[in-house]
């Protein structure tokens, strides 16, 4: 090749390289900081994960995730194993917090915080009597009326009562004594039930302001014969409890009064002999779209295992009580929650801070989000 030609080729290559480098180095446009928010209405499969953070329990949070995209959408912050509930209109996530002015000591303030589910900011708050129950967070320690206008906060000092908050006026409406009874299971627009140590169900009816107008008590179970797990699951105004040995105790509150329904069993005689029984923190879930009940089960059951995790979930037809199949979790799980749509998913919190997902239309495990929280004790699904 002649020297002139070689020089021409070199020059052409240099120009091409310069051009491409210039394109790479073009300035990116200036940007401004944005602000995400969540859509409304929420996807029916959205999951609110209540994380009580055992290693730092004066904190805690609710992590919001999209199980389809396996993506975190945002979070709220809680204080000291705060009971949490989603309003039936899906607009507000409530948390009943307990703060000390110096972190672990100082002046105590109990406060109900109303988080907007779109902005994930506190919308308003109400200072509560300093009586809020402090337990490993129970599903029915905080409830919301069916029309989202009243919130019920369970108190334990250890005498028991319920603080009723009017969510329209943002004020405490009343304190309802529920001596000898625990928790508050929302019933319709103006009632809640409590489970009593003598085996009765107390039903308190309120007026529009949130003040008590009447109460009834109905025998429900014999506490000297069975241990009834207080962590029930509802389908409308019918709640399903289970004993620690798997006997299901349904109760209808239609009309505002407790009407216990016939009991049935999660386990056959043979399964009982094999040691099968329900266990977990929130061991029952219910998918209204499929009319199915799900129970976390383990074998080799003993009385001391009634809150233990498991990898086995059984599905039941709610109408017949017939066992339909088994879901197998790749990790031990502790708390169950089903979505409320027609093609539901089951969410189960595992013991490593993750959540496991199941497609309930196929009965198959459909994915997981590992270590999305520290201690995911309960989850909530949009109504």
């Amino acid at each position, binding site marked *: 090749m002649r020297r002139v030609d070689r020089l021409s080729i070199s020059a052409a290559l240099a120009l091409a390289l310069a051009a491409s480098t210039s394109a790479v180095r073009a300035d990116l446009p200036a940007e401004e900081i944005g602000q995400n928010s969540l859509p409304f209405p929420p996807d029916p499969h959205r999951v609110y994960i209540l994380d009580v953070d055992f*290693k730092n329990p004066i904190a805690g949070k609710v992590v919001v995730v999209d199980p389809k995209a396996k993506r975190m959408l945002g979070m709220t912050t809680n204080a000291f194993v705060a009971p949490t509930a989603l309003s039936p209109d899906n607009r507000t996530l409530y948390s009943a917090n307990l703060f000390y002015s110096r972190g672990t000591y100082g002046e105590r303030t109990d406060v109900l915080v109303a988080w907007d589910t779109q902005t994930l900011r506190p919308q308003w708050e109400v200072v509560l009597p300093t009586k809020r129950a*402090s337990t490993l967070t129970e599903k029915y320690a905080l409830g919301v009326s069916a029309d989202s206008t009243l919130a019920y906060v369970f108190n334990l000092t250890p005498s028991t009562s319920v603080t009723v908050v009017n969510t329209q006026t943002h004020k405490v409406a009343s304190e309802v004594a529920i001596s000898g009874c625990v928790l508050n299971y929302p019933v319709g627009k103006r009632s809640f039930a409590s489970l009593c140590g003598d085996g009765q169900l107390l039903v308190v009816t309120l007026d529009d302001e949130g003040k008590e107008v009447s109460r009834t008590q109905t025998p429900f179970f014999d506490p000297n014969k069975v241990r009834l797990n*207080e962590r029930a699951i509802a389908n409308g105004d019918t709640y399903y409890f289970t004993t620690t040995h798997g006997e299901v105790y349904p109760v209808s509150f239609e009309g505002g009064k407790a009407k216990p329904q016939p009991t049935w069993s999660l386990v056959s005689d043979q399964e009982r002999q094999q040691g099968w029984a329900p266990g977990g923190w929130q061991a029952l879930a219910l998918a209204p779209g499929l009319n199915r009940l799900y129970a976390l089960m383990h074998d080799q059951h003993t009385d001391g295992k009634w*809150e*233990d995790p498991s990898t086995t979930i059984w599905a039941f037809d709610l109408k017949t009580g017939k066992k339909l199949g088994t879901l197998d979790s790749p990790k031990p799980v502790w708390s169950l929650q089903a979505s409320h749509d027609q093609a539901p998913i089951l969410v189960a919190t595992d013991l490593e801070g993750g959540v496991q997902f199941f497609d309930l239309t196929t009965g198959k495990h459909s994915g997981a989000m590992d270590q999305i929280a520290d201690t995911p004790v309960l989850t909530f699904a949009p109504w």
Partner: protein
Amino acid sequence: MSFLDKLFERSSRHVADTTSRRKVLARLGSLIVAGAALPVLLPIDRTAKALAAEQPKMGDPGDPTSCDYWRNCSIDGFLCSCCGGSITSCPPGTDASLVTWIGTCRNPADGKNYIISYNDCCGKHACGQCACSRNDDEQPLYRPFNNNDINWCLGAESKIYNCTVTIIRGVAV
């Protein structure tokens, strides 16, 4: 209280109970505890020795820093013996809650059932040492004084839970 270790200890116990060699050992330990009046056979966690605040006493056998110590039969929390306290006293700077839950535990040394109160020590963060969860006698929440999911710092100035002591209140009759 004692909900703090609920996930971790319960899970590790469950995994241990459902897997291989540890399952055999756990079952063996349970059988020994259930059937024995022989203190020397009690399962003892030797790795916890370095943390021990107390030595076993005559008639009160076992290692107070071990979850298998006989007084811990209904506990669900962090053992104060591992947190700067002892089986009967709270760690420095924490306050004892005088409202508590109780359990009944069998002392393998004399075969008697003792009423044990599980007072919580309160006012500081969770201790995080020697988590122990044994719920054989635990009752649902509607029987609160037999329930260990409640934070029993109810009777202390600060309700923030640190650890739990195990105090003999008398012989059960």
